[in-house]
């Protein structure tokens, strides 16, 4: 994967402490991640355990993936603090990836989830000091300028600063931890 300079799409907005059980409930962790058809089930059930009132802020009650579908119409997730807390299940970032998520912009991440996103290269996990889940509404069109470190709400005509990706940028740019390790000469092939 080469990192895009511009990521543009519709926003799906969530609050604080979205845990991995909400992202992909444990009963679904049985499907094969390598089987092309079974894999789609992770997209179908992505974010399916988020409580109704918090699903798609500010109003809530918005499905991330329509019933029977495995792709979401939303490309960018906006969230509050501690996104991805809880279990180490990599199925969580994978489910978001299969549903079509290209980037998440959160105030902070739980660490195992963050590592999984970076080392697996599933999408770009941006951080911001802004309380974007109160500024952006589900359905707003968002543009992330990766080089400039800006997130723009095209619907509202506002823009906000992102934090630098920091240490992990090299892994994200390489594609995943394997590509990074090969690039650094740690893996031979």
């Amino acid at each position, binding site marked *: 994967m080469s990192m895009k300079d511009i990521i543009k799409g519709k926003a799906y907005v969530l609050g604080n*402490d979205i*845990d991995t*059980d*909400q992202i992909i*409930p*444990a*009963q679904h*962790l*049985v*499907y*094969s*991640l*390598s089987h092309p058809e*079974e894999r789609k089930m992770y997209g179908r059930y992505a974010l399916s*355990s*988020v*409580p109704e009132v918090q699903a798609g802020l500010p109003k809530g009650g918005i499905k991330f993936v329509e019933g029977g579908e495995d792709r979401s119409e939303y490309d960018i997730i906006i969230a509050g*603090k*501690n996104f991805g*807390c*809880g*279990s*180490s*299940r*990599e*199925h969580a*970032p994978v489910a978001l990836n299969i549903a079509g998520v290209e980037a998440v912009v959160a105030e*902070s991440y*739980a*660490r*195992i989830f963050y*590592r*999984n996103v970076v*080392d*697996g290269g599933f999408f770009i996990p941006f951080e911001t000091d802004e309380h974007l889940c109160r500024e952006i509404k589900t359905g707003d069109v968002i543009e992330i300028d990766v080089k400039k470190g800006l997130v723009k709400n095209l619907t509202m005509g506002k823009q906000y600063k992102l934090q630098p990706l920091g*240490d992990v940028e090299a892994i994200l740019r390489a594609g*995943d*931890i*394997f590509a990074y*390790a090969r690039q650094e000469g*740690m*893996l031979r092939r």
Partner: protein
Amino acid sequence: MGMTLTEKILARHANKKSVSPGDNLWVDVDVLMTHDVCGPGTIEIFRREFGPNARVWDREKVVIIPDHYIFTTDVYARRNIDILREFALEQGIRYFYDVGSPEYKGVCHVALAEEGHTRPGEVLFGTDSHTCTAGAFGEFATGIGNTDAGFIMGTGRLWVKVPPTMRFVFDGEMPSYLMAKDLILHIIGDMGVDGATYKAMEFTGEGISMLSVEEHMTLCNMAIEAGGKNGIIAPDDKTLAFVRQRTNRAFEVVYGDHDAGYESVKVYHLKEMEPVVAKPHSPDNKALVREVKGTRIDRCYIGSCTGGKMEDFKAAARIFRRNSVKVETYVVPATTEVERRLREETMDGETLYSIFEKAGAKISDGASCAACLGGPADTFGRLSGSEVCISTTNRNFPGRMGSKQSQVYLASPLTVAASAVRGVITDPREFV
């Protein structure tokens, strides 16, 4: 300045004289653990990256413990166990605790300790967030995803960013009505579920030295519920005795330096502390038990890595031996060893198993993670509607135990047993 216990272990495994919080290191791994939920995905990534004929870096260091979805008719779940079995055979994995065999163990974090895979001074990674449990043995232990685990399988190494250490000191003697679960729920309630994000949580003090090895495991188990990278306790004599009883492998005990730098130090006075619960739907939603006593419940659950060990059942039996349950109470031993000991160990001349049976609890036929994380629809004790449950498990996120409409309170085995007997949330001090 010296190093903390966590920093010292990481430095040794990166062949460095000293490290500081924030340093990125490549560390050598002593043990990689995986289970039936994340093992198949890990194996897939390992084969994709290292080739179909690749061999794991060390067949004695990859430990495979199926434990999540064991007693189910779900075909996908059963297939995942077949994948583990085939891989273990192909690779000659020495420590594979197969379902349906005499080697079957149950919950991986407890099984790792029982089988001697948790050793002081070592580095343990596992594809499960509660891998931090093993910090109770004075080692660096943390949870990772499939990609990182696949990387370790092929290389025996992983990058780690050195976490700063937060120190928690428990002063005074441990009162009989408190358990490790109360202490850790206090800490999480005080800091929030992200209060220790990417930090090491080190537990120490007189109160900690009074606690058993299993109670140490409970404390470290829930470091992740505060966002911690790892939980850790310097090994004491009983911990070393426990480890030596269960492994012949040599290990080197590591202690933190006296002049180590801690990011923070927080002192708790045990005599001022009370039994607590975490209310729905977050482990940091703390309340004193007396503040919520009388809350109606439909179900009690005693089990999991954090609440299904012998000490947990002994605590519950203290209350159940003279009292019957008023609400459905599910008992799930974490491992086959715990299951066996429930039938062997006695209290006032009666086995714990018989005490639970006579009290009216439903006892699982098999050891596993069971309903702690919901799981397939036919999982023992799983919530399926709008039940209110009080549980010895470690997470009460929305839907965690199987139903989005349910409400879960987390508490110590003493508090859960007391509540089972009254049918409402009850302070264990009414019994002990």
